[in-house]
């Protein structure tokens, strides 16, 4: 149902933008999105512009086998290695999810493989207790329409 609504909305967006003469192309496989959440997502390059990847969003979630008792002995090593990633300039910003479901890192990494390599080496990842979903990010490209619209 939710997907149908999304499709419907996307259809409306295509129609209205089509009238405005804006190129609308679904960009399958443009982003190397990984993780379970990526399947079935609607992808639209509404602005028609492309920007380079400047950051990587890393969402870390506990795996089903994670328990407080299982995590606790690993945590000191996890904290130290995470701080090392920050000191190496890999982690730009770091947060916990307030519902205790894991962490969110904003990485200064532009290649998904390099991000995965660094995060998989963390102790909780090695123990199979935390998994990361990686999403490449770039400057918010639709802002570029303001340049096209501004007086030269």
């Amino acid at each position, binding site marked *: 149902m939710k997907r149908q609504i999304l499709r419907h909305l996307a259809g409306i967006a295509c129609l209205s933008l089509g009238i405005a003469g804006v190129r609308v192309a679904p960009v399958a496989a443009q982003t190397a999105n990984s993780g379970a959440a990526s399947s079935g997502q609607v992808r639209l390059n509404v602005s028609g512009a492309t920007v380079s990847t400047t950051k990587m969003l890393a969402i870390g979630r506990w795996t089903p086998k994670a328990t407080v008792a299982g995590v606790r002995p690993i945590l000191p090593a996890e904290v130290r290695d995470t701080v090392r990633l920050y000191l190496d300039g890999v982690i730009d910003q770091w947060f916990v999810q307030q519902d205790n479901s894991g962490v969110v890192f904003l990485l200064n990494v532009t290649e998904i493989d390099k991000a995965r390599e660094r995060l998989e080496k963390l102790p909780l990842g090695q123990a199979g207790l935390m998994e990361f979903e990686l999403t490449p990010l770039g400057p918010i490209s639709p802002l570029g329409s*303001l340049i096209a619209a501004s007086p030269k």
Partner: protein
Amino acid sequence: MKVMAIGTLEPLTPEQRQEFLPKEVPATLQIYLDGKMEQFWLRDKDAGVIFLMTVNSIEEADKILKALPLGRAGLLNFELMPIGPLSPLGMLIK
């Protein structure tokens, strides 16, 4: 590398504002869209701007900022500071 660029603006006449800002603003946005500028702020009382830049070298930041219309006219001058992670935090994990 990250560079904190602190820009100080010369007082602009209304004519200069009209001449430069319509070109300065889109040129600044383009730096952001090119992925070279992470964050941007205006200093209080229009004293200037502060840009957090992601560049390969301080020379690159200098070149980009001096190419802006106000930079070319010598009306906005930047102090460039290379910055990085707060290394003393490492003392806690020794």
